[in-house]
């Protein structure tokens, strides 16, 4: 009976969401407003879902590690690793430049008889959650519980280990120090270069008018040099400030390199 309810609820959610949740490539579209828990198969009861969301938001604020949980009724013919990677990369889970995002993917068994799960790690987390560790989390914490249809338990147990690991890697203080450097603005750069260029050119002309025997070439090169130096120092971008509006500050724009591990049951 329990099985039947499961299947029915999956069918229902698949029909209800099937058309909406995936983009043209078959990858779930980024939720707006951003959510960390994206239970597209309704295997997590609403109460627990809110709890996990809150837990992950706190984790995002204290460790800066963004962990996204996603359950999907189908992998749309993707390999589980590829699917999790695509979600992480397209949503931009984790902060830009730090790439400290995690995607925990769960595809329940009840839809087509094969359950799959994968923990994808962003570039920045490959060091503290190496593939072998991710594999261990999946094999030892999650799949045994999934096998007993305890999806919430499995997800929570996996998240517990992930967050324990993450908290050691990015304590807020070290992070604050590290992120200080990147609050510059691009775009104004070109304008400033232009203005400096003009000022220098005019100055050089005035200069030349005064001592017209002197060459004028140098000041233009000086201006060019200064302009170049200016350009080099403007690295960051606006997106640092404007990314998302969730309680955790949005997904952030992190990047993934294919790290992580998964398993089937």
């Amino acid at each position: 009976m329990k099985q039947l309810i499961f299947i029915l609820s999956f069918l229902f959610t698949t029909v209800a969401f099937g058309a909406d949740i995936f983009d043209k490539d078959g990858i779930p579209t980024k939720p707006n407003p951003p959510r960390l828990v994206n239970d597209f198969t309704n295997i997590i009861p609403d109460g627990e879902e809110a709890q996990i969301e809150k837990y992950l938001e706190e984790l995002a604020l204290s460790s800066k590690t963004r962990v996204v949980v996603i359950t999907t009724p189908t992998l749309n013919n993707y390999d589980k690793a590829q699917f999790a990677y695509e979600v992480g990369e397209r949503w931009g889970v984790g902060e830009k430049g730090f790439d400290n995002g995690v995607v925990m993917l769960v595809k329940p068994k009840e839809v087509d008889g094969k359950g799959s799960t994968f923990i994808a790690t962003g570039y920045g987390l490959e060091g503290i959650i190496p593939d072998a560790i991710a594999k261990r989390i999946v094999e030892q914490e999650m799949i045994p519980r999934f096998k007993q249809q305890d999806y919430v338990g499995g997800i929570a147990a996996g998240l517990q280990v992930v967050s324990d690991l993450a908290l050691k890697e990015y304590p807020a203080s070290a992070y604050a120090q590290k992120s200080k450097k990147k609050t510059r603005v691009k775009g104004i750069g070109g304008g400033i270069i232009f203005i400096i260029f003009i000022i220098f050119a005019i100055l050089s002309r005035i200069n030349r008018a005064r001592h017209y025997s002197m060459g004028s070439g140098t000041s233009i090169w000086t201006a060019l040099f200064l302009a170049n130096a200016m350009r080099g120092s403007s690295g960051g971008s606006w997106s640092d400030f404007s990314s998302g509006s969730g309680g955790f500050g949005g997904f952030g724009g992190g990047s993934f390199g294919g790290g992580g591990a998964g398993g089937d049951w």
Partner: protein
Amino acid sequence: MQITSNYFPTLSNNLFRKFMLPFFIAVSALTLQSCGYNDMVEKDETVSQKWADVQTQYQRRADLIPNLVNTLKGFAEQEKEVLTQVVEARAKATSMNLNVEDLTPENLQKFQAAQGNLRGALGRLMVVVEKYPDLKSNQNFLELQAQLEGTENRISVARQKFNTAVQEYNASIRKFPRVMYAGSFGFEKRAYFEAEETAKEAPKVEF
């Protein structure tokens, strides 16, 4: 009347020399930028960087193999043939080190073929070791397996990102008006990774 017409050209000449010349230089510097020289350089650099990433990931796989082979030797001595194949394929694959300047389609294809061989040999090895249940409880082996699987994923991501970078670069040098002068600046079309037929057929590294 005559005075003005004589005076005017000198003024404009003076004006031109004082203000317009630097202005034109500034404008041409900016147009050069919008003509995309810098943009092409940037895209070219991205391609180089992505190629370096691809090589890093292939190297990472190659680095895992000696350890894997040593671990397996103890358990599966009968499988010497498969193990030797892996070692040989690795030697061949690692002997091909391509600089980004040498990335002609032929070279890339050779590189891809060598790496594809190694992938195939590894896949066969992983199928063979299924016969040894002892291995399933060997922590060392399990970790190597996880790392190897992760490396395969990373390779495919790195290749995908390389292809995207090449695609953007190629598109940028072939657009008008850049297509007219990109070649003379030394920007040439770059080669892609092609989806491997063999990769699809190769035994899936299922762990």
